[in-house]
């Protein structure tokens, strides 16, 4: 049973004229799975699009930002460092994809584990920041948009970490390699997307 077919819930016996070993059918199945991941990410883009749209509309309607002078936007120092941490994890997962293609199992496991670690550090720092921000969800539209947008993103980071953890586990068991690299490729798409969303969040919520 191929790993690939199970991830996508693919047809057990393969589609027409394909056996599990037929390279053309294999490539087609890989192409379909990655297309599915891309389309899913596209729908996620519209989700964050809606959240950003709500943010900008509420911000434009507000007399000033933050609307109340008692509220202050978080300091840039820590979050800038955290941004670098998350962005570097995009690099490590790209490296892991390369290692999978080179059939280097140790490198792959290291790359994924590093990505997992960087993502986890990002979440911990963000949680620390949430606690020390000095404003909450209930502090008007400022708090509402800040925590909803970063919270949605944090949930996506968490989901990505679970997915990376699963692929890491399979890589450790030797189930991911040159001919079975689709799952690594798929989670890397998702992870790059999550990073891109963060960069946009950082620029709008913290900098702009």
């Amino acid at each position, binding site marked *: 049973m191929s790993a690939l077919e199970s991830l996508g819930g693919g*047809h057990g016996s393969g589609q027409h004229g394909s056996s599990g070993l037929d390279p053309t059918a294999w490539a087609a199945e890989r192409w379909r799975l990655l297309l*599915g991941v891309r389309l899913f990410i596209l*729908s996620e883009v519209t989700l964050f699009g*809606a959240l950003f749209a709500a943010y900008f509309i509420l911000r434009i309607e507000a007399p000033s930002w933050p609307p109340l002078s008692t509220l202050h936007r978080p300091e840039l120092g820590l979050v800038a460092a955290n941004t670098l941490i998350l962005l570097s994890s995009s690099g490590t997962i790209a490296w892991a994809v390369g290692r999978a293609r080179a059939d280097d199992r140790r490198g792959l496991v290291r790359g994924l584990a590093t990505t997992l670690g960087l993502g986890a550090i990002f979440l911990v720092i963000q949680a620390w920041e949430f606690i020390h921000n000095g404003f909450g969800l209930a502090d008007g539209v400022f708090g509402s948009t800040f925590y909803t947008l970063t919270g949605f993103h944090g949930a996506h980071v968490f989901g990505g970490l679970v997915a990376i953890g699963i692929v890491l*586990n399979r890589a450790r068991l030797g189930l991911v390699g040159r001919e079975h690299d689709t799952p690594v490729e798929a989670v890397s798409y998702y992870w790059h997307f999550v990073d891109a969303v963060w960069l946009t969040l950082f620029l709008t919520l913290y900098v702009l």
Partner: protein
Amino acid sequence: MKLVGAERLTTPGLPRAVLGILIGALIGLVPVGLAAAAGLAISPAHLLLFGYLGGLLGWLTGIGAFRFWIAWALGRPIDPAEEHAAHGRAGDRSRYFRFTTDHKVIGLQYLTTFLGLLFVAGTFALLMRLELAAPGQQLLDRDAYNTIMSTHGTLMIFVALNAIVGGLGNYLVPLMIGARDMAFPKLNALSYWLVPPALLVVLLNPLFGGYDTGWTAYPPLSERANLGQQAFVSGFITLGVSSILSAVNFLVTVAGLRAPGMRISRLPIFVWSLVVTTSIVLLATSVVAAGLTMLLFDRLLGTSFFAPAGGGDPILYQHLFWFYSHPAVYIMAVPAFGAILEVAPVFARKPLFAYPLAVASFIAIGILSFMVWAHHMFVSGMADFLHIPIMVTTELISVPTGIVFLSALGTIWLGRIRFASPMLWVFGFLWCFLIGGVTGVYLADVPTNIYLTDSYFVVAHFHYTIVGGMIFGLFAGIYHWFPKFTGRIFDDGWAKAHFWLFFLGFNATFLPMFAAGIEGMRRRVADYPPELGPLNLWISASAFAIAVSMVVFAVGVVRALRSGPVAAANPWRALTLEWQVSSPPPVENFERPPIVTSGPYDYGAPLPGRSGRVPEPVGARR
């Protein structure tokens, strides 16, 4: 294999899924209990939220939705035999009640679920019409009426969104493109099994005090409404997730699993309609999910997205809501157009008229549907500069819709028409959707819109478009593909009785509503001016004709399943691929991949590869 007692509850299946709801809900309540013990304030809203999430996961675990993925995640070997068993054996009825991956089973699961829901939501409509049969209060107080009205609307929207896409779409798309199944069969089964808990929580909303906002859930009312509102939001978001997953599945299936020779210029028009529809689903659904989540946060967490006291904006909700919900109208209508255009050539024995233009129109409708949402908001107090552009785009969308209409008319024109039951629904569609479309002009024009907003004119208009479009398309499709789905022939007399009762009852009910609306009858209100009494009595009486027609349909289905004549593979002599396999098709659809050599509507030429007499079509009347 006969399962008894405890064994039934430990093997994946419906009994374990029901048990899973209970266990999951209890586990979900644990964090709430811990929070209460820690001295945090707990409300019934928290219980509902966590209980629902836990119950949902418990249900999916119980039905066996996660078995494959968990085994895969842990790196355990997956038994190919077990894999195959998920597909089910032909003729095994229990596969309709299991986590089955066969797209044909899933299609029929969707279809029966949403037809059942059509009956439930229709019953709610009858309760409304009983109350409205005379001015003043009859049998429902205002709150009960509001809840019944809201639930009727919500459930019918769910039917309209899912019955054709989930039902006919799942069954037919892989067959029509010559594939063995969808691209991701397990994801497909997951999409379906997300549906029952979503419907259940919405149906149970009266237990939580109901809700009185209609299906649109506008704040500020929805921020203050009873807990039933939260049940609505939970179900709506769950169905949204299910739709997005299934949209991904459809798009990848059509992109990647077409049989050799099935070029996109040869795709059956129904498949095209689903490509456009699922693209809309993919791009729009997350937006309403975001809006509803903000509403939920406002209610639960004290955020202020739509609460002016905290700087929020209720009109923002309307923008987010209609940015999905107007395209959603085309999620309902376009697959119905597809079904109608699929049926018309078969019964007119002519090629589909202007096929490329019809496809282009679908795509144009899909794009334009994202530019018209604010015509629902002309009186909301939204930015003034939006009025004229939105009016123009709304009227623009009638151009591609008109071309679809002309495609159907051109197909029928000078055809050799068989007035079989599916074709009757095509004619019914042409009449009703025409009325729906023409009356839409008055609602797209800002001046008349301001007068007609929230009146029964609107109620009549959207019933003519959604019932006249989507439900007529659905029944055209059901009667057309009934022999394929069941292997039985639907009795022509019962089918025609159903059509005529429904068609006449529908028009008798909803045509007068235009007049009632112009006279000033308000929608969503349990009462009306006394002088509209006689008109409303007529409307209520007519509504029951629709109900009778649906009973005729139900009896007809049962009769056909029990004792209907066995259907041949291709009783209508149609050319699309699903008719080239047995009725119902074998589990793997096609023994060998079909090789497509011509378009699906080449009527007028003899059937390829056949010689001698072709059997007389069923229901033929020349």
